[in-house]
């Protein structure tokens, strides 16, 4: 049993300021995106008002598939690599995966909502949709592995391997489904491409959308990281308290506060 670690310090003023600014900037940018997207920008020639979903779906997809998953995969590798191993990477990976699950699910949902009126289909098995759906399942697998009780080091190892395997597998899946469609003779290759032609105010709004959701991701990642850090220490200190109480039951006395470094000594702090 490791000795009690010092309790987690609150965020420094600088960190608090950065995170708060991220949050405010994200909220403002998102509000602006909604306003521009729903009212200010014109409807498309081909897709009419449906094009407004382009300010929401592609940015969310970018955050899910590249930003969140990218951070998770890179962090996992950095944790596995002995020279850069640090609990920071493990916590960052876990945070990125959880936020990534939300964004990936939303990618599929918004894509589906966009696809239904555009092609009449809720779903199609093209390369992008299929690999996104698979990514969601793999990320859920990561979260499932993370829930398994055990010491933090083992849990970190297992999770990192899951993330690494996912990072390897998703491109393979994307590639093979893509191949599947192009090599399949006689099949109508459904161009599951929603991209409209973007110009003028639409382009700026789209850029704003990307920036807004990226800021939101950064903010959520920071908060989620803090939650991870705090809950880890809470687990440790709860364990300390429980051990201390059991020990005290055994000896019939309660010398000193739990949480101080005397779980095995017996004198006051």
């Amino acid at each position, binding site marked *: 049993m490791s000795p009690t670690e010092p309790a987690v310090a609150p965020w420094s003023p600088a960190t608090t300021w950065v995170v708060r600014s991220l949050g405010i900037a994200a909220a403002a940018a998102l509000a602006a995106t909604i306003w521009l997207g729903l009212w200010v920008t014109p409807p498309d020639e081909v897709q009419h008002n449906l094009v407004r979903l382009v300010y929401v779906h592609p940015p969310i997809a970018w955050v899910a598939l590249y930003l969140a998953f990218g951070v998770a995969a890179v962090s996992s590798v950095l944790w596995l690599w002995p020279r850069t191993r640090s609990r920071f990477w493990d916590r960052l990976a876990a945070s990125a995966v959880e936020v990534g699950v939300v964004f990936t699910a939303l990618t599929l949902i918004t894509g589906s909502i966009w696809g239904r009126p555009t092609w009449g289909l809720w779903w199609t098995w093209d390369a992008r949709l299929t690999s996104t759906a698979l990514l969601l399942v793999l990320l859920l697998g990561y979260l499932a592995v993370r829930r398994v009780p055990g010491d933090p080091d083992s849990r970190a190892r297992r999770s990192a391997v899951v993330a690494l395997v996912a990072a390897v597998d998703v491109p393979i899946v994307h590639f093979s489904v893509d191949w599947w469609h192009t090599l399949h003779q006689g099949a109508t290759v459904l161009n599951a491409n929603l991209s409209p032609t973007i110009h003028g105010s639409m382009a700026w709004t789209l850029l704003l959308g990307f920036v807004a959701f990226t800021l939101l991701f950064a903010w959520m990642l920071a908060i989620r990281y803090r939650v991870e850090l705090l809950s880890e*220490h809470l687990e440790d200190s709860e364990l300390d308290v429980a051990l201390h109480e059991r020990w005290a039951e055994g000896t019939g006395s309660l010398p000193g506060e739990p*949480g101080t470094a005397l779980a095995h000594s017996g004198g006051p702090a």
Partner: protein
Amino acid sequence: MNYIDAGYAIAFGVLAAYAAVLWRRRQRLERAASRSRGPQAP
């Protein structure tokens, strides 16, 4: 309700809900952490 409004509502609704959940979890944890920190303040 048309598809565009539904899309926006779901996307921002879910994100707002998740943000709220995260915020609440953090608040509760910060309170617990400051409690365990308190008695040891020099």
